[in-house]
Structures are given as structure tokens and as C-alpha cells.
């Protein structure tokens, strides 16, 4: 699996000279599978740039297909969809797996973003690509995404929930766990079990612990939560993700240094630490 970061920011895109190094686009990660498939997780503004890149290949000639996994439908995870160029090209095909409990509900939520009051596109029906919308099974059963075996887990996210995904291919595993906010006790045993032994755990690190303490109701993690989860689950590498919109590049540098300290102090010296940066790739 080859993982690439297109948007690593939380809540709202944060343009400006002080977010250039890590990037200001909202959540979007692509996974190129060993067998040449494409899986995309979340559709923040980073999706526009991924789409423009894809137009140079089969997607530009109406022969592309990909699976989109959607963690939840807050704006910063869907707002790139209307700007994703491949959806306006002929017969490109997308399978979309997301929350909502039924394909009809999920499709209606996505349709709401295209409401003519808000979007000149007016409706998903005006996309020429084919969308096959499906509801993620929440009973832990696996489903297929371009040859990857995927399982999902519902995590607490403030007053709602967000899905974490575990992607497996040929004995390798990648876990995407953004927008998770555990209770006072930290990562739950069920969450740890879900992350267990992953080659790469991408985990929400929206906040510093002191910022998280005053904003616990927002449903995000600190780098401390992420480091604890990584150590307890015995993962090989931890990716920091979904930085607060107010954090500058220098702030994220500090977040990263502190996360390393926590990992080392808790027995995770062997765990690799990677702060997600727009445009960077990671191979598993």
C-alpha cells in the first residue's frame, strides 16, 4: 500500500503563510494498493488536488474507478466532493462507503451539500460519474475496497460518531482513525483491539493535551491520546493527523516533538512517528 496525504487539517481549511509546510487543506488520504487499485479516505478540500492529479490518468479519459471511504459527514470531510474533477468525466465509477446506516440516508446527506441554495451543481444527479453509495457495516464484518479487506469501527466524536477504518492487504495493515475523542479514561480497549499490531496507525492529533482538556466535548484527540493508543496497540508507525486550524507549522513541529517524548516515555521507542504533511507519501 502506498499512502499519500492530500489534506491533513481539521475543521476548516486554513490557508496562510504559517500553514504552508504541513498544509491547510482538510482531510483527504489516498491509498494505492499493491494491485493498482485506488482507495480514497475522506473528501475534504485535499480531494480537489488529488482529483486534478488523477485527471492525467484513466480518470481523465472516463475509465477510472476508485472506492471512497467516508469517516463521517462533517463539512471538513465532504467539502471537496463538488470540486473533484473526475466526477464530471463520463463513466468514471466510484463506490462510496460511509456512515448513515443505509445508502439512502448517506446519499441524502451528500445531496444536501449540493442543495441549489449552496452549490451551483444543484444535485448529485448532475455528476456524470457513476456513484454506488453503500452503508458501512457496523457489526465488524469485512468488506472489499479495490482488493483491500476493510473493517470499520464507530468511534465517539463529540455528540456524534466517526468511523475508523482498518485496511489490510497481504498481511499488511493501515488504520485510519481521525476525529476520535475518547472519554476521560483515554483510548478504550475496543479501540486498542481495532488498532492492534497495525503497520501504520493514522490517528487524530487535533490538539495539545492542554487545549484538549478545555475542549473535550468537541470529540478530538491530543497527541498524548494518540501516543498512548499506539503504544498499547503495539503498532509499528504512528501518523499524526487533523491538526487544529489555528496551529501554525511551528506549533505542529512542537506537537510532533512532544508526541515523540510521550512515545519514548511510555515504552514506544521503537514506534516510528510521522507527522502527516500534504503531498508526502508513505509506503507499507
Amino acid at each position, binding site marked *: 500500500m502506498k499512502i499519500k496525504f492530500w489534506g491533513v*487539517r481539521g*475543521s*476548516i*481549511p*486554513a*490557508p*496562510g*503563510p504559517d*500553514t*504552508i509546510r504541513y*498544509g*491547510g*487543506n482538510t482531510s483527504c488520504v489516498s491509498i494505492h494498493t499493491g494491485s493498482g487499485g485506488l482507495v480514497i479516505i475522506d473528501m475534504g*478540500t485535499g480531494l*480537489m488536488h488529488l482529483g*486534478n492529479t488523477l485527471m492525467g490518468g484513466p480518470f481523465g479519459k472516463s475509465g477510472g474507478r476508485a472506492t471512497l471511504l467516508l469517516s463521517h*459527514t*462533517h*463539512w471538513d470531510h*465532504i*467539502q*471537496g466532493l*463538488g*470540486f473533484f474533477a473526475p466526477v464530471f468525466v463520463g463513466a468514471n465509477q466510484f463506490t462510496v462507503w460511509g456512515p*448513515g446506516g443505509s445508502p439512502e440516508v448517506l446519499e441524502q*446527506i451528500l445531496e*444536501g*451539500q449540493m*442543495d*441549489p*441554495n*449552496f*452549490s*451551483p*451543481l*444543484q*444535485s448529485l444527479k*448532475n455528476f456524470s460519474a457513476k456513484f454506488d453509495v453503500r452503508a458501512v457495516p457496523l457489526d465488524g464484518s469485512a468488506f472489499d475496497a479495490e482488493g483491500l479487506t476493510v473493517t470499520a469501527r464507530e468511534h465517539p466524536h*463529540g*455528540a*456524534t460518531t466517526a468511523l475508523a477504518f482498518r485496511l489490510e492487504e497481504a498481511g499488511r495493515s493501515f488504520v485510519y482513525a481521525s476525529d476520535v475523542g475518547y472519554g476521560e479514561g483515554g483510548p478504550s480497549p475496543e479501540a486498542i483491539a481495532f488498532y492492534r499490531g497495525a503497520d501504520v496507525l493514522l490517528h487524530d492529533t487535533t490538539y495539545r493535551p492542554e487545549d484538549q482538556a478545555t475542549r473535550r466535548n*468537541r*470529540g478530538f484527540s491530543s497527541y498524548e491520546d494518540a501516543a498512548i493508543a499506539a503504544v498499547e496497540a503495539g503498532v509499528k508507525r504512528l501518523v499524526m493527523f487533523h491538526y487544529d*486550524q489555528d496551529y501554525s507549522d511551528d506549533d505542529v513541529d512542537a506537537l510532533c516533538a512532544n508526541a515523540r517524548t510521550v512515545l519514548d516515555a511510555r515504552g514506544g521507542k521503537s514506534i516510528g512517528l510521522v507527522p502527516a504533511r*500534504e503531498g508526502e507519501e508513505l509506503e507499507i
Partner: protein
Amino acid sequence: MKVRFWGVRGSIPVPGRTTSRYGGNTSCVEVRPKGAPPIIIDAGTGLRRLGKSLMEEAFRDGKGETSILISHTHWDHVQGLPFFSPLYRQGNQVHIFARQRDTHLEAVFSQQHDMPYFPVPLSAMHADMHFHELIEGARFEIGRAKVSCTRLNHPWIAMAYRIDVDGAAVVYCADTAPFADILFGREFMVTPPALDQPLPADVIAELDKMRAGVVALAKNADLLIYDTQFTKDEYRLRPHWGHSHPDDAIAIAHDAGVKTLCLFHHAPLRSDDDNDAILANYRQVVKQQGERFNLLSAYEGLELTLGDE
């Protein structure tokens, strides 16, 4: 009055190295009459930083007041509102003005806060929000400022605003297409119609009337802020998107006799270098045509003082 640009981009915010000088935030302009509360035009992502700056003032203590004029409710003109800090402080008064439509304005804005999309409902905002629905041609006052408006040529219709205060006038025209090829309403156009074809007489009359309304609104204005998302060539490829280009903006500025024309609502993928080149090119054009107005291109942080100091 002072006019300050907080977001100058169209369609979608674009963080990154190639847009950092002009800025990647979507549309938001602050108009500050002397010694009076701010009047804000549009609530794109630029509103987030403006909100933080306002929290240094009366808004921090819940004693702030502002009016936000919304050109239209497409995402890039409203998506900053849920992140506007003054809304989260009890006592602040926030007035939202926008064009009347089939659905009540408050219901439209509530949708942005619905549960599947955003964690905090509009009804949970601590500030007092007041919604004011406008009809085309409405005139009203915000303190000493006199506000007028007219409709623009954009899918689902946008409003242009003029604010007269402190002996000067600023006019905001975004989003709009030229008044030449397509009359926009509510229809979705999958593909661009053929250009340079004769239009029906009633469509021509309607477009002429709309253009005359814009020229009248901008008459002798000190500053005209205008949607120039496209170059002329880009416009010919996508005339059905409802945006204009500098040649059209210059013609309007000429006819209205404005003092300064400001290019605005830059295309998301327009780099800083491209914007520099467009400005340099059109400064030549303006000079060659003998126009009497200054030409600027909006960037985040640009602040202009108009009229009485």
C-alpha cells in the same frame, strides 16, 4: 471608512505555497465606518480570522454588534459563519442581510449547521442573530451608513451592495457573469451554450436592465470590488459558471466612473504569479485606454482608506 480584505478567493479555499501572497481564503470584506461597528460583506473562510480579530474588541465582552451582507449563499460566501467567534459569545448582536428566496433565510443558514454536517446547531449560537430579507433595489441604513443593492447575473441570483458613509462609497459586485451571453436564473446548465448567437429580445432587455442597475449602483464610487474569477479565454470555456473577467469589469468601471477598480474572487488555482501578471497586463490596458481609475487586485490584508479620515 476603512475597507479590509480577509478573503479574496472564489469557489473553494486554497491553502498552499502558490497562493499565500494573495491568500487562499474565500470571500470576506470588512467595511469599517469611522468610529462605528464593522459591516461585513460575505462570510467565506476569511470570516474566521476577522472574527478572531473582532474578539479583541467589544465582541469579547458580548457587547459587539455587526451586520453581515451576504451576496448569495453559495458555500464560498457562507462557509466561514460557523467559525465566526463572536457568535459563540452571549450578548453580541449579529445582523445577517441577504436576498429573499422561497425558503426563510434563517432556515437556509440553519442547514449549514445541521447535525450530519456540523456539531453545533445554529439555534445554539450564544449571540443574538437577526435575519433580514432583502428585495432587489432595497435601501436601508446601518448606523450612518446607507446601503443599497441590485441583482447580479449568477446562478440562483446574487446581490451587489453599495455602502455610502464618511463621504465615500464602496461597491461589491460578486458573483456575476457579464451581462451579455446568458441570463442566469435557476436552471442548471450541463454544458456551455453556444456564444455569439443572437439572444431573444426579452433576454437582451433583461440583461441590459441588470447591467444598467449595476452601473447605476457603482456610479462615481470610490471603490468597485468586482468578480474577475476568469480570464477572457477561461470565460469563453465556462460562461455558464456565472463569473466575469477583467475586460468586463473595466467596462463597468468606465461606465460608472469609479475611482478605483479592485479585481476580486480569484480562481482557486490562480497562482500568485498569475495574479501578478494579470494585474500588470490590465494596468497597461487601463493606461492605453486612457481610463481614469486605479486598478488593484485584492489580496488578504489589503486595507484601503476611503473618504474622511
